[in-house]
């Protein structure tokens, strides 16, 4: 590290920029926290008085609660399904050699370069044209499963990108040793691969869940009569008198997901450290070790 990073003034300038941007990022959200406790129904100065009314209003709003339940159901379905298909995809891509690898990788990652809006529109056309193409014989209703299907496509590349580096770091000899000792492919996966990637899987699951829960662009086109949380929030934001309770519920949602994200990150670090100690011990014992970063 012998570039400008080592000079004193550059260090202080960069620390200054960092602090400034942290403030810029946190200030608006902090204001939301403050205004969620403001008594008045207009979100703005002056601050009228402290109250928890907006939280009460939010938690007794049936439509709001229902939309949260809908989004949680969709997130549960899509993150579970996408973890499965993502893992099925990531294992061969990370640990096997085959000819079609590059085109398959390109296909898997291609949803990343298609704006969600366009993908949402494409799904809408697809689901709508099912009954046109089959002459009204088949119909695909726009609703909850339609949104979940779309979210799996959106999430799959992200999960593959999270899992591949982790899978590649697993020593190939471990797998071969297990198979030489007569373990089946499934057993090798269950006893060697799965425990080693469990932390990465958990992280991928949490991220997928949160992304799906908050996803709007795909959902708005294929949800049909179903109202997800983001759709509900966006509609309510157009009505000024509803804004304070939306702020209150968002504060709750953000706080909860913050706890989950930070918790998951802490857990992951604890696991990784334990694993590192384990593989270092293995290294000392003369076992081939490809996992010390």
């Amino acid at each position, binding site marked *: 590290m*012998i*570039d*400008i990073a080592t*000079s004193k003034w550059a*260090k202080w300038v*960069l*620390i200054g920029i*960092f602090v400034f*941007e*942290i403030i*810029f*990022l946190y200030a*608006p*959200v902090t*204001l*939301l926290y403050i205004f969620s406790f403001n008594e008045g129904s207009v979100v*703005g*100065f*002056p601050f009228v008085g402290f109250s928890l009314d907006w939280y009460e209003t939010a938690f007794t709003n049936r439509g709001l609660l229902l939309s949260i339940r809908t989004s949680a159901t969709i997130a549960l379905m899509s993150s579970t399904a996408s973890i499965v*298909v993502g893992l099925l995809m990531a294992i*061969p891509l990370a640990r096997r050699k085959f*000819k*079609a690898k590059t085109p398959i990788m390109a296909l*898997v990652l291609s*949803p990343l*370069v*298609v*704006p969600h*809006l*366009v*993908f949402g*529109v*494409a*799904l809408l*056309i*697809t689901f709508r044209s099912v009954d046109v*193409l089959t002459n009204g014989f088949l119909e695909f209703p726009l609703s909850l499963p339609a949104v979940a299907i779309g979210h*799996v*496509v959106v999430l*799959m590349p992200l999960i593959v990108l999270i899992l591949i580096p982790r899978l590649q770091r697993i020593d*190939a000899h471990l797998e071969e040793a297990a198979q030489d000792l007569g373990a089946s492919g499934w057993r090798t996966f269950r006893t060697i691969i799965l425990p080693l990637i469990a932390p990465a899987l958990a992280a991928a699951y949490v*991220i997928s869940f*949160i992304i799906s829960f*908050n996803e*709007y*662009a795909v959902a*708005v086109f294929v949800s049909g009569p179903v109202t997800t949380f*983001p759709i509900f*929030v966006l509609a309510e*934001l157009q009505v000024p008198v509803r*804004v304070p309770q939306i*702020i209150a519920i*968002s504060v709750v*949602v*953000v706080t909860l*997901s*913050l706890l989950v*994200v930070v918790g998951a*990150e802490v857990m992951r*670090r604890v696991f990784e450290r334990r694993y590192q100690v384990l593989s270092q011990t293995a290294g000392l014992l003369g076992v081939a070790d490809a996992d010390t970063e």
Partner: protein
Amino acid sequence: MVSENDTSEKSDTSEKKGRVASLARRRHRVTRSLLALPLGWLLLFFVIPVSLVVAYSVGILETFTKEEGVSLETWRIFLTGENVYMLLFIKSFRMALIVAVVVVILAYPIAYFLAMIADKYKYSLLLLMIAPFMTNFFMRVMAWKVLLGRQGVLNSFLIWSGLRDEGNPIEGLAFGEIPVMIVLGYVWIPFVMLPMFAAMISMDRRLLEAAADLGASRWRAFWKVTFPLSLPGVVASFFFVFIPTIGEFVVPKLVGGTKGYMFGSAIDDLFGMGLDWRTGSVLSLWLVMAVFVLALLFMRLVRFGRLAES
């Protein structure tokens, strides 16, 4: 389609060779069956839908009966600028470009700080930066919806504290093009630094030592080593912002007003209100094509940059 050629396990004895071959065959079969489900999913719910948009844009597929048959007419009208959409696209392209460039410039020092200076605190500080923003897109947009506007928190604060007269709010904070860009920039900064951070953290630090040994000054070492090596991260970051921004329609809806209307808003309206799916399909494909061409162009540029270096 999938063929296994694992050459790592060569052996002398023919018996072991046979076993290796059968193992390879088995792995080959397993690979194929593992890939079947995810590839099938992508085919059914990604490749086919995108192809159907193509079909729709030229009238091969129609879901409403009123439409006008197979032709390139809708494309022609759009490309020759007979309707407003081409102008709207240019405007959105410009906005996305500005947002992406500004955000990358703002995020670069942060990524550099975390990767090169923050040392053992880098992952904690990284988490501090991105955690609140991994949580809720709407929370971030909503915060600005509340802040901006003529009666927003910022203007009401200025008036309440006497810094501005009543009935004379700062117009720049009212809804429009600039607020849309501010909000989009705000939304992306924490994420955009990740690819640059990754590029810097994985770079070979011995190159910097070598540069110093050969007498390079700190600035020179930065411009000749660190910066070129972080370029792939910079390009990735740029697209990280550019792609969602050019297809954005939520932020314009919230803080755009009529002046902040974007290309994405038009697509949303064409489909959402069921006005004209065919034009909507043309616009959607155009958006994807623009992103693709730009991505190819940039990948070329980065590669040329590297060739020039060596």
